[in-house]
C-alpha cells in the first residue's frame, strides 16, 4: 500500500487512545440504516493508515522502506557507544573487566557467541589503555577461533593489533578490532555459516550492554540499555537465525531481549533506577548461565 510521507507523518502522531476511539466510532452500530456513512468511510481509511503507522513505530517508515539499503552501519559500534558513555559518565574501565574469560565451549554456536563477548572485552581493554588486557583477550579469541576453524582469520591483523597496543595507539586499535569482527563475519558467511556470524555480533552486543548497564548504575546515563530500538534491532538479528534459532541459549536470549524491550518501553522517570538495576542483573545472569564464569 502506498502512503504519502505527509499522511504518514500526520497519522503517526495519533496516540493509542485516539486510535481506540477511532476504532470504537468505526464499529459503532449505525441505527440509521446499517450502512456506512461517508464520514465513517473516512475513518476506515484513517484506521487503515494508522494501523500501518503502528507497525511503522517498530519498523522502517513505509515510504522510506523501498529505498533503504541495509548496511552494517545500521548499528553503532561498541567503541562509538563507549565514546558517548564516557562523555556523560566517567567510567572506570578497569573495574568493568570480567574476572575470568568465558569458559571453553565445544558447541560452535556458543563459541561464536563467546568470541563476540571477547571482542568487546578487547575494546574495553583499549578504553582502559591496558595493552596487557588486550593481549590476554586476543589469546582467548584465538582459542575460540581454533574451535571454529578460523584461526587463520586472525593472522592478517594480529601484527597491527599488537603493534597498536604496544604503541598505545588506541583509536587505531579500536578500528582494527571492529575490522576483525567484520573479517570473521565475512569468513563465516563464505562458509555459509551466517548464523555464527550473527552470534558473534550478538555476543559483542550483549557484553557491550552489560558494560553500559554497569556504567548506568552510577545513575548518569542509560545509553544503549535504555533504547528500545537497540533491542528491536538485536531481536531482528536473533529472528534472522536459521538452524541456531532452536538452540536453548538462543531462545533464552530472544526471551531476555524481548523482556528488556518491553521493560524499557514502559519505563518512567520513577522506575528508572529499578529498570537499570533489573537490566544489569538480567544481562549479567544471562551471560553467566550461557558462558559460565562470574564477574
Amino acid at each position: 500500500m502506498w502512503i504519502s510521507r505527509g499522511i504518514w507523518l500526520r497519522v503517526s502522531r495519533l496516540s493509542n487512545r485516539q486510535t481506540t476511539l477511532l476504532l470504537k466510532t468505526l464499529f459503532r452500530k449505525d441505527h440509521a440504516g446499517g450502512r456506512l456513512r461517508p464520514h465513517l468511510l473516512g475513518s476506515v481509511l484513517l484506521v487503515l493508515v494508522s494501523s500501518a503507522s503502528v507497525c511503522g513505530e517498530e519498523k522502517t517508515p513505509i515510504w522510506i522502506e523501498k529505498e533503504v539499503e541495509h548496511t552494517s552501519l545500521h548499528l553503532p559500534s561498541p567503541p562509538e557507544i563507549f565514546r558517548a558513555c564516557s562523555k556523560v559518565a566517567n567510567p572506570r574501565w578497569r573495574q568493568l573487566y570480567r574476572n575470568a574469560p568465558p569458559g571453553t565451549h565445544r558447541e560452535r554456536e556458543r563459541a561464536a557467541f563467546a568470541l563476540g563477548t571477547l571482542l568487546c572485552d578487547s575494546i574495553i581493554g583499549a578504553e582502559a589503555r591496558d595493552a596487557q588486557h588486550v593481549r590476554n583477550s586476543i589469546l582467548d579469541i584465538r582459542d575460540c577461533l581454533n574451535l571454529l576453524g578460523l584461526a587463520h582469520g586472525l593472522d592478517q591483523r594480529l601484527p597491527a593489533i599488537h603493534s597498536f597496543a604496544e604503541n598505545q595507539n588506541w583509536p587505531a586499535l579500536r578500528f582494527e578490532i571492529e575490522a576483525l569482527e567484520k573479517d570473521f563475519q565475512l569468513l563465516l558467511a563464505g562458509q555459509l555459516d551466517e548464523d555464527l556470524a550473527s552470534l558473534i555480533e550478538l555476543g559483542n552486543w550483549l557484553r557491550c550492554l552489560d558494560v553500559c548497564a554497569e556504567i548506568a548504575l552510577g545513575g548518569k546515563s542509560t545509553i544503549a540499555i535504555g533504547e528500545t530500538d537497540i533491542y528491536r534491532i538485536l531481536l531482528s538479528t536473533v529472528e534472522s537465525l536459521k538452524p541456531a534459532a532452536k538452540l536453548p541459549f538462543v531462545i533464552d536470549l530472544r526471551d531476555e531481549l524481548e523482556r528488556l524491550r518491553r521493560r524499557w518501553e514502559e519505563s518512567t522517570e520513577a522506575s528508572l533506577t529499578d529498570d537499570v538495576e533489573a537490566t544489569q542483573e538480567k544481562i549479567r545472569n544471562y551471560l553467566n548461565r550461557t558462558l559460565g564464569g562470574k564477574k
Partner: protein
Amino acid sequence: MSLPPKLLFCLLGTLALSFLAIAQDNAGEVTATASVPLQAARILSGEGFERRAALWEGSLKADSAKSLPVYLYPENEYCFLLADSQQSESLNFALFDAAGELMEEGSFHEGQNALHFLHLRPPSAGRYYLRVTNGADGKPVRLALTYCYR
C-alpha cells in the same frame, strides 16, 4: 553544521588522495571509490575522529535515492564521508528521524572530485535515515560511504 576551519583545512587535504583513488576501469572503480573515504578518515583521525570499519558501497541512478539507516548519539559528533565515481555535483542529502520526519537537508560539503562530507551532531539518540539523492540531471554513480565520530 558549519565546519571548523581547522577541520576544513584537513578535509581539503584529501584532494590529492581522491585524485589517486579514482580508477578509470569499471572493475576497479568500486574498490577505488571505497578507498577514498578511508583515506579521508585517516586524515580526520588527526582531528580526534575515529572511523568505523563498516562501509557501504553501491550505485545510484540519475533521479533516484538511497536511504541508509544509521544509529547516532547526541553526545558524539559525526562526519560522514561519501565518495562517488563521477565527481558528481548533483548529490544531495536529507536526514530523517526514525518516524520519517525530516531533520535536515541540503548539499554535502564538497571536497573536490570524488569527496563529499557531512558534519552533524544529532539532537537525540536513535535511528536515523541518511537519504542520498542523485538529481535528475546527474549521471549514474558508484558510491562508498562511511563515517567518523568523536
